[in-house]
């Protein structure tokens, strides 16, 4: 039977031949929590009566969302997570290591496995050809104890991308455009499977940006083939042995195919307070922005910081616009330092904060004031997302973010390139 990537991955992990609509009990290759969902998960793990982790080496705890801790309560949550990791032998990633999804991509995710995390952006690892999805604390607690979980095998929407990106347009614009097109519930319960010429040659950083936001269209997973790009990425991190090629069958059955011509895309922005509330950057000129935030699991990689630095080099941020930059991981920070990217950004007026989630979810390091607007490279702009329901969040690419930091209002990066 011809299979989509989702059907292939869940057949592999369940050991039976499944197709869309079937229920699969799948072996889990990697399970993780972070510091805002972890404490509840660990409590439920113990409440369920589990005495040990099924697979401690493939169980990870990340301190990234409120790290370093901004208050007493979260500092105490961190203690609980460190103690749990020590007691049960789980992997612990302490403050400053980076965002869980970036570290999963760099160090842990293997093509062909099932990955579950107590974080909705777990879908990020779909970029490496893993069936990766977010779940709540109870589900993850049970995976910690049993090493498996159940899935309904999702139907698949194939996104076929052809053409060539224009200058100043990148993967972020593509995924924002797609979410605007199909809506924030356009792929609910489904797999979004990406393919086409543009995808075949797209570097891993762009694939990660796109897979990361699949959940913003409601998708269960956002999947990319595992191919030579994947092999090259894994090799960079000394993990070539984790590589296996995985592609959907050419005659797989799709619920729907969405064709996108990358050549026709322009810098795109999500307006408050919904990710599918998209518009073109050029049509939002004049909207004043008090803070630009560059970072996160969506767009905090070296290539993203380089794209911003290329625009900001030798220039200064607009005096009315703060610029906060959070590298996605310690490795990203080190590489950006070595390449002079951090120097360029600091000279342009950026405040560099700890590698981690930073301002993205409104806990610290860039919470907005009443009535303020932020243009962010993150993945979510819901009411209150950045810590204040009286504030406004716009989402865009690192290029648009850098151009906006220069001008002080939303700016199409092609104007400054």
């Amino acid at each position, binding site marked *: 039977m011809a299979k989509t990537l989702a059907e292939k991955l869940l057949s592999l992990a369940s050991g039976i031949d499944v197709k869309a609509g*079937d229920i699969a009990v799948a072996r889990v290759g990697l399970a993780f929590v972070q510091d*805002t969902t972890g404490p509840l998960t660990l409590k439920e793990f113990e409440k369920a009566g589990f005495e040990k982790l099924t697979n401690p080496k493939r169980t990870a705890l990340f301190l990234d969302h*409120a790290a370093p801790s901004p208050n007493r309560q*979260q500092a105490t949550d961190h203690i609980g997570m460190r103690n749990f990791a020590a007691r049960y032998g789980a992997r612990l990633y302490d403050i400053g290591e980076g965002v869980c999804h970036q570290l999963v991509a760099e160090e842990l995710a293997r093509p062909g496995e099932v990955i579950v995390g107590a*974080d909705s952006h777990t879908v990020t690892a779909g970029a490496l050809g893993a069936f990766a999805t977010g779940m709540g604390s109870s*589900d993850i607690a049970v995976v910690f104890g049993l090493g498996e979980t159940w899935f309904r095998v999702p139907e698949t929407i194939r996104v076929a991308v052809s053409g060539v990106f224009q200058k100043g347009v990148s993967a972020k614009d593509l995924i924002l455009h797609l979410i605007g097109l199909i809506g924030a*519930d356009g792929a609910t319960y489904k797999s979004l499977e990406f393919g086409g010429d543009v995808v075949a040659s797209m570097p891993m950083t762009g694939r990660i940006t796109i897979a990361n936001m699949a959940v913003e269209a409601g998708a269960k997973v956002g999947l990319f083939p595992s191919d030579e790009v994947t092999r090259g990425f894994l090799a960079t991190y000394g993990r070539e042995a984790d590589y296996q090629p995985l592609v959907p069958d050419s005659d797989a059955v799709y619920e729907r195919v969405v064709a996108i011509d990358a050549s026709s895309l322009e810098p795109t922005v999500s307006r408050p307070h919904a990710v599918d509330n998209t518009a073109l950057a050029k049509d939002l000129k004049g909207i004043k922005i008090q803070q630009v935030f560059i970072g996160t699991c969506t767009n905090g990689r070296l290539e993203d910081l380089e794209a911003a630095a290329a625009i900001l080099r030798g220039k200064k941020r607009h005096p009315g616009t703060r610029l906060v930059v959070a590298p996605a991981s310690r490795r990203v920070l080190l590489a950006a330092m070595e390449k002079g990217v951090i120097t360029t950004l600091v000279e342009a007026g950026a405040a560099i904060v700890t590698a981690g989630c930073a301002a993205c979810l*409104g*806990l610290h390091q860039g919470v907005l004031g009443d009535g303020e607007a932020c243009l962010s490279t993150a993945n979510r702009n819901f009411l209150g997302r950045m810590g204040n329901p009286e504030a406004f969040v716009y989402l865009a690419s690192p290029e648009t973010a850098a151009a906006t930091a220069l001008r002080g209002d939303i700016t199409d990066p092609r104007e400054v390139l």
Partner: protein
Amino acid sequence: MLKGRAFKFGDAISTDHIAPGRLAHLRSNLPELAKHVLEDADPTFASRVKAGDFVVAGENFGLGSSREHAPLIIKMAGVSAVLAKSVARIFFRNAINLGLPVLICDTDKIDDGDELEVDLEKSIIKDKTNGSELTFGQIPPVMRRILDEGGLLPYIKKYGGFRVNSKS
């Protein structure tokens, strides 16, 4: 039979409306966090809701984060079920895992403040205020069995694992 009043909400109520990220420091103090349930959608909800009442919403309820605290504090507030036109995937699974029913129906037929009776066995919602009767979609069998045990942890304690086959 579940009985209570309807509290009506609109479309796209996110987990940030239900359990705002800015209150993450309260997540290890659930009774305190529950005082803020749905605060960014209706700041008066937490003080008005009573045991048995219903959250009645539009499309894509619970989109966003995987935080189980969102359905958990809705349940802690005494809500007996969430009724919505559609629901986001992770929220749906989390709610069922906690034993909180999520029923998909045409919520346009229900007004804020209506007195409702929900029969989970017969899949019927009676609106005592306007006299209408609604049906809701079946919860998938695998989830129904988890719900019937009171949630995922009781289910796993009872069975020791997942009792499912590929067709159910």
